[in-house]
């Protein structure tokens, strides 16, 4: 027998039912449960207070699927990493997302873990989150009041805190499609599979002549939340991907971030490796 309490759980079959439960006035917050790869570990109580009750949204099929609408790629919150890896739309339009999904856990995790779960679980080490920051993703939240949209950049408000209200569910992720946007992803972990990141980053830019514009750098595992690196982005904006630009950007990044020591790595290592990985990304695209 497991030596922990199995929390109360409801499994609504539709969004409407889910919205009703989220407003039941009981006072105990619901923890949404999607593929379970984070929440089912949390119910053991070994990593903090277990959730008081669970809202299992796995059966709400309207939250699955990937399609293009109004110049954006829309990905339902319950879309699994496996579905993202197999999607022709993702491969054609935002292939870096499939690349990030492929680094998460292994088959068992990718078959259950969802993009929406990665976003809402709000781990600073969530591997898709730097990508979502780098491509200016937006999150569509829903409740019985209707829908609202929050940009990725303002979604993670503190350590494992988000802009989602207790009565809301994440419905889908919206990725605007920009012509000429390039995105690169790197994850540094202990091994290739089943590793939680020591540092994870996604860099995006558009090419204007020789110069990079609209530079975005998203990072994970170096702060209490997934973050952008505005000073480093400014150092790269309008620059060609030269050795000098890479040196300046790597120095800016090492100065800008304030990682911590924890069980997976040290602050010194994270700061050093973040600068070097960024330098390498720029070099690989500068052809020198």
């Amino acid at each position, binding site marked *: *027998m*497991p030596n922990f309490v*199995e*929390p*109360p*759980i*409801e*499994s609504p079959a539709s969004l409407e039912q889910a919205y009703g439960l989220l407003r039941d006035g009981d006072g105990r917050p619901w923890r949404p*449960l999607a*593929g*379970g*790869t984070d929440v*089912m*570990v949390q*119910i*053991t109580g070994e990593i903090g207070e277990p959730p008081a009750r*669970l809202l*299992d949204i*796995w*059966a709400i099929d309207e939250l699955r699927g990937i399609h293009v609408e109004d110049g954006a790629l829309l990905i339902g919150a319950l879309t699994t990493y*496996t579905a993202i890896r197999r999607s022709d739309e993702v491969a054609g339009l935002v292939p870096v997302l499939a690349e990030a999904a492929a680094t998460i*856990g*292994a*088959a*068992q*995790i990718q*078959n*259950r873990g969802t993009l929406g779960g990665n976003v809402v679980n709000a781990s600073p080490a969530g591997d898709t989150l730097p990508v979502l920051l780098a491509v200016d993703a937006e999150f569509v939240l829903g409740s019985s009041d209707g829908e609202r949209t929050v940009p990725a950049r303002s979604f993670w408000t503190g350590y494992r805190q988000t802009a989602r209200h207790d009565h809301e569910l994440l419905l889908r992720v919206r990725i605007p499609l920009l012509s000429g946007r390039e995105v690169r992803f790197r994850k540094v972990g202990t091994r*290739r*599979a*089943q590793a939680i990141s020591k540092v994870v980053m996604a860099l995006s830019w558009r090419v204007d002549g020789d110069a990079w514009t609209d530079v975005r750098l998203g990072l994970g595992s170096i702060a209490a939340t997934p973050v952008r690196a505005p000073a480093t982005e400014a150092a790269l904006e309008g620059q060609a991907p030269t050795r000098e630009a890479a040196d300046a950007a790597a120095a800016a990044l090492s100065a800008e971030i304030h990682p911590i020591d924890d069980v997976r790595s040290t602050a010194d290592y994270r700061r050093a490796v973040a600068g070097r990985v960024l330098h390498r990304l720029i070099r690989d695209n500068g052809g020198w």
Partner: protein
Amino acid sequence: MTFRFTVNGEPVEVKANGSRRLLDVLREDLALTGTKEGCGEGECGACSVLIDGDVVDACLVPVSQAQGTTVRTVEALAIDGRLNELQQAFLETGGAQCGICTPGMLMAGEAFLAGGAEPTDENIREAIAGNLCRCTGYTKIIEAIALAAQRRTDA
């Protein structure tokens, strides 16, 4: 709550809290102890089973999410007491040592063989990347899966 799904070809009806782990339902309620618990947090793959053909960690699936699905465990592999090709290959290559990872490795291997990908070393390694072998006997396990793939192609 009562949950109804199929386990190894048989319809089952389980009365349980919906947040009960599928792993506990299989091992304790249905007495299918072939599926092992290693870490209980989705790291080791010892509890790998197939749900509708997809390999998953049974420690991370609440039984509420098994409703209406088809679950296969290691007990489903042998037919009439005879080992299937993959089990036979594990036996022949020495792919099983202490045995704790073996049921999970077999289920990850089954999912890989059913997926029909080329049985290259790289592909097999990716397919079992979510399964840890504490004896570190990976080479023999990879050989076993490659051998079973070869035999299925020849058959």
